[in-house]
Each structure stands twice: as C-alpha cells, then as structure tokens.
C-alpha cells in the first residue's frame, strides 16, 4: 500500500521531469544534434557562401571558395554579420530562414563581407551562441525571436561596439525615460502585427459566406499573437460590423502553445462545425494544424478558406493549398537587410524599428478573389500606413 504510493509519486516526479523536458526540447538527447550544430565553424554550410557570380568585388571580400577562417572579422575593414537562431533550424521556412535571407541579401549586395549563423538547439545556449560571434569580432549580430530578447540585451550591454539586431524583440527601454537604460547599439526589429491581422480580417470578412470567421491562435503570453488577433477582429468589423468572429488561444504555455497541431486541427474543426468558413491560423505549428484541417475539409467539398501567418505559408505548408487564400506576413527579410545596411553606413537606429507587414500573394486563389476585394485591400493598406485607419490595438496605453 505505502509502496504503491511511492511508486505513484515516483511516477509523477518522472512524469514531471520528462514532461518539462519534452516541452523545452532540452533533454540530453538533443545533444547529438547540438553537438553538430552549436559550433559556428561547423554550422557554416556551403550555402552560406555566395555564388561567385553574385559576389561583390570589394577588396575585402573573401573568395567564395575560401574557408571562412581566412577572413579576420576583428579587422576594422571586414564587416561581419552573424545570426543566432531561436531553437529550431535555419531552413525552418519561417522566422529563422527569413532573417537569414536578409543577412544573405546583405552579403549578396556587398554590404557584408562575411556572414555566418549558429542554430540554437537549447534555450539555455542563447547567450553562449551570441558570445561566440562577439568573441570572433563580428560587427553585427542578429538574433531571431522574442525568446532571445533578454540574452541579446545583456550582450548589447556587454559589447557596446557591436551592433545587435533583435528580430521580434520589443525594446522596452526605448520607451521609458531612464537614460541609463539606453542601448545605442541595440535595435529591435518589430512589426505592426495588428496591421497584418487587420488586412487578414478584412479579407476574411469579404470572402465569408456564413458571416462567421474564426482564428486559431498560439498563446496570449506572446504579444504579437495578441496583436494579430485584435487586428484580425478589428479588420473584420471594419468591413462588416455585424460579423461574428470566434477566436481562441491555445490553453498551454510558451513550451507547447506553438507546437500542438492536434489541438489546432481539432479547434479548427470545432469552429467549422459551428459555421465558420474562414480560419486564420496564427500560432506556429499549432496554427499549421488548423490550416491543414481546413484544407482537408475544403478538399472534401466544403466551401472553406484559411489564412496563414508570419511568412507566405503557401511555401511552408503545401498541405494547406486547398484552402490557403493568403497569409498575414511580417516582412522580416527586407527589415533585417535594412538594419544591417544602416549598421554599416553608421545611421543605426537604436530602439524599436518597425518592419513592414502585408498580405502574401493569393497564389491559386488569385483568379477567385474579385477585383473589388483586391482594391479594397489596397485601400485599407494605404489607410493603415498613413494612419487614417486605426486598428484599435494599442498595448500599454
């Protein structure tokens, strides 16, 4: 009897340990992959080298075939850009990849002489990975993702001569008055997700037949997700004040809210079952689960659509082609490129730097979207940019 209790307790303890390990993907077993990827020298894939034809010809540029070692980043003439990913891979067809493409663009256009990346495999390594670039004398370090914000700020404080670009990292110090918090070498590339969401909501409201649209979201612990949702609902109401919007956040925390496609799929089904015919999936893989579910309903003849998020998901989730009309995008690639260029030219904008947002192309649905819908979307985009349309989302005041 007593023994049973101990066994159960032990079971619980192990369960808790294993569960938390699952969530963070930080188990020792992740080590084999981290062993391969955590070192920048190893991570330097051949793809990082530019094609010879595109390579610029400044005297300092390395020949593409040369090993990265031969370029000395600590020399003042050599402009090096390093990128640290969030947990995940450089070719994730999402955040990491978009940011890396911005860095690659900098190299192709001759802004950067040497570029490299480190794939983070464990959230505990954020600071270490940034440190590796700093130790090697890199001039600009790009860190990708909300989660790296704190580590990046600490490093920016430690290395005032290196410029830091934090993708999706809101810079709190930039909006308070205390001067000693200022980090002149730190820029957060952030986005008006509410505006992208607004466009998605307007599109949804114009193509819905049932007058009910849904959103399946990651967690409200991440501010951009909230911005997407509020913008989406405001955009829908802008087109049709009586529209019914049903939105729901994932019940979990940061560790699983974006990696639970089953929940996303089931929730999308639940929304469709009660009449929603446009589903906005905004929550990483959780959202992707929703998109695929809607696509399989569309394939079986239901008149339903879905809208993706962050990047053009037509390219990232081919399973969703049957329903994917567009995606509410954050244009990370040009944003990163602009900031790298500004870092080199000396007018680095510290604080919060807003990148552009917009809707992805309609792809196969291009012919099915009426011209007046496209015109209306253009008009709204203009209104959002010049400030004549307000999304109504103003966090913190």
């Amino acid at each position: 009897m007593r023994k049973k209790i101990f066994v159960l307790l032990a079971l619980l303890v192990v369960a808790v340990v294993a569960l938390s390990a699952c969530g963070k993907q930080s188990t020792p077993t992740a080590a084999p992959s981290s062993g391969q990827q955590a070192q920048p020298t190893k991570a330097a894939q051949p793809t990082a080298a530019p094609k010879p034809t595109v390579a610029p010809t400044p005297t300092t540029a390395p020949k593409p075939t040369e090993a990265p070692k031969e370029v000395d980043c600590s020399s003042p003439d050599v402009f090096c850009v390093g990128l640290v990913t969030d947990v995940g891979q450089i070719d994730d067809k999402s955040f990491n990849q978009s940011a890396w493409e911005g860095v690659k663009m900098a190299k192709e256009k001759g802004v950067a002489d040497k570029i490299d990346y480190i794939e983070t495999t464990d959230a505990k390594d954020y600071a270490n990975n940034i440190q590796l670039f700093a130790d090697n004398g890199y001039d600009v370090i790009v860190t990708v993702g909300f989660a790296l914000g704190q580590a990046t700020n600490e490093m920016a404080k430690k290395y005032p001569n290196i410029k830091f670009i934090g993708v999706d990292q809101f810079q709190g110090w930039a909006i308070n008055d205390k001067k000693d918090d200022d980090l002149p070498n730190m820029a957060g590339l952030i986005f008006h997700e509410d505006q992208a969401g607004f466009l998605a909501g307007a599109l949804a409201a114009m193509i819905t037949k049932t007058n009910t649209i849904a959103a399946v979201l990651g967690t409200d612990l991440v501010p951009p997700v909230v911005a997407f949702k509020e913008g989406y609902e405001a955009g829908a109401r802008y087109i049709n004040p009586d529209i019914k919007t049903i939105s729901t956040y994932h019940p979990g925390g940061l560790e699983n809210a974006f990696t639970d496609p089953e929940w996303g799929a089931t929730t999308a089904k639940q929304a469709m079952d009660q009449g929603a015919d446009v589903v906005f999936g905004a929550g990483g893989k959780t959202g992707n689960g929703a998109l695929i579910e809607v696509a399989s309903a569309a394939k079986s003849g239901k008149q339903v659509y879905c809208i993706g998020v962050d990047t053009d998901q037509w390219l990232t989730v081919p399973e969703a082609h049957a329903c994917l009309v567009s995606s509410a995008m954050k244009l990370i690639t040009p944003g990163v490129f602009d900031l790298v260029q500004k870092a080199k030219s000396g007018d680095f904008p510290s604080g919060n730097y807003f990148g552009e947002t917009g809707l992805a192309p309609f792809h196969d649905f291009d012919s099915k979207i009426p011209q007046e819908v496209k015109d209306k979307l253009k008009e709204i985009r203009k209104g959002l940019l010049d400030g004549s349309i307000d999304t109504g989302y103003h966090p913190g005041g």
Partner: protein
Amino acid sequence: MNTPASFANWKIFWKRWGVLTVISVITLALIAYYYSKTPQITEAVLASTLRQSVPLVLGALCGLLGERAAVINIGIEGQMLLAAFLAFLVNVYTGNLLLGVLAGIAVGALLGLLLAFMSVTLKIDQIIGGTVINILAIGLTGYFYKVGLSAHGKLNPIPLGPLAKIPLIGPVFFNNPPITYATILLVFLVHYVLFYTPWGLRTRAVGEHPRAADTLGINVYLVRYVNVVVGGALAGLAGAYLSLEAVGSFERLMTNGRGFVALAVMIFGKWTPLGAWGAALLFGFATAMQTQLQFGGQLHIPHQFIGMLPYLLTIIVLAGFVGRARPPAADGIPYEKEG
C-alpha cells in the same frame, strides 16, 4: 412487486452504479437542454470532445493492459511520438495511409517489446524502462525529422450511411475517421477481453498475485510480454492517429504530454477500459469547452482556469467521490520465478 430479493438486488445495483447513473442522467439532461437551445454548437463541442479523447483513451488502454499484468508503462508518450513519426514517414515515402497506420502500430508494438524485455526479462525498474523509451523517442524524432516533408493527405471522416443523419448522435458518433471508430470498438473489446475471457482472467491474476498464477501453471512472463506488446500497439495506433488522422503532418514533440495525461485517465478510470473512456471524454470535454468559452467571448476568467478543471476533478474524484482507485496488487513489481 417489491419482493425482498429484488429490493436487495436494487440496493446492490444502486451501491455499485448509483453515482454513475446519476451522473449520466444529469449529463444527458444537460446535453439535451443545450441541444434544444444551440444545436450546432452542442454538436461541435461533443464532436470535438470525442476527437480529443481518442489519443487519451488509446494511451490509457495501453497503460492499463500493462498494469493489469503488473507492468507499469510510463513510456506511452514516447511510444506515441515515435509511432506518429514513423507512421508519418511511411506515408511520406509510400503515399499510403494504411501502410502508415500499420507502421505506427508496429513501432508501438516494438517499443512495447523493448519495454517488456527491460522490465520482465532484465527486471530493470519499470519507471526507468519507460523513461528510456520517452527520451529515446524525443531524441530520435528530433534528430531525424526534417522540415519540408509533407504527408499525402490524412484519414478523412467516413459517414456511416443513414446513421450519420440522426440528429446530434449522427454527427458526433457516426461521422468520424477510421481510427476514431476503431478506438470506440477497442474500448469495448479490451473490456470484454479483460473481464470475460480466460486470457483476461490470467492477466488480472498475474497482476494481482503472480506467484499464485504461476502455481496454477500460467506463464507469468508470457502474459506480461503479450500485454505490454499489445498495449504498445495501441499506443502506436494513438501515434498514427495524431500524425495521420488528427493533423496530417508531423511535428517534433507533437504528443505534448498526451501519453502522461493518458496515465492520469487510466487511474481516473480505475484501471478499467470503460472508466478510462469516461475519463478521457471528460478531459476531451474540458478542452473543447475551453475553446468554446473563448469562442463565445463571454469568458471573464483566465481560460487556463478551465483547462485546469479536469485535473482538479481527478483529484477530487480520487480523493473520495468515486472511491479509492486501487492499482493491481503486484503493479510494478518484477516477478522472480522460484527455483
């Protein structure tokens, strides 16, 4: 009419099933009430409930088959995850959904075999054996999964002819994809096998008192092996469900702790298939409700609060409402043959 005998029977019936009957009647009344008010939403929530319960009940069946034969399996999470991954991979490379599902089942069974080997033959601590499987699955899937693989479709709902047209019951029970149907059948099948066949009796004997069972000529090791492997196959089916029926894609860590919730479901269901099904439906219902309350928008308490309710309920129920949940007596103890 009320002869003392039938009265006594009634009393026994009440003592055994009273609480359950009351709960069922209340539940059905509530469903009927909401159905009369908002039929579409009621159907949507109940369909979602059933769907969310599938991996939980399959996992719980896996757990209870093992534990009824005294092998604790906390590797369900890992079995599901690896099975989900291989089911997905087979589907990606062959384009065949059925082969994918079979691969998932096979992987689950193989991991079951591994667990049985560790805990029955090697007599390793069963908790450690299960943990090994969990870590193995996370590592393997994390390492081998590549972004950019896409599955060829997913298992779609098959409406069962006129049955699917019945209001409320039709859309909820008779318009489901194949693994969901299979799961409902499996619940009753496992219940039947466990309580109405010689094999079930042997299983329970091995779980309660292996020495006695051994004395009567039952091969304790064989019973344990078979139960753990069959259980593994069920967990594998749950994995295939996740990647090929529920989502149609694979994602690292996509099981998200469902294998552990399945253990809670098993305990909540007092190590019986029907009880586990009821518990799984309750968990599924809580998740569906959590979504629905957000859809409705009238929610003024944090939605995480509703998500907490099934766990809270488990504690309350286990703490005395339905009575003590008693695991099989020999649960978790390796059997050492004398001689």
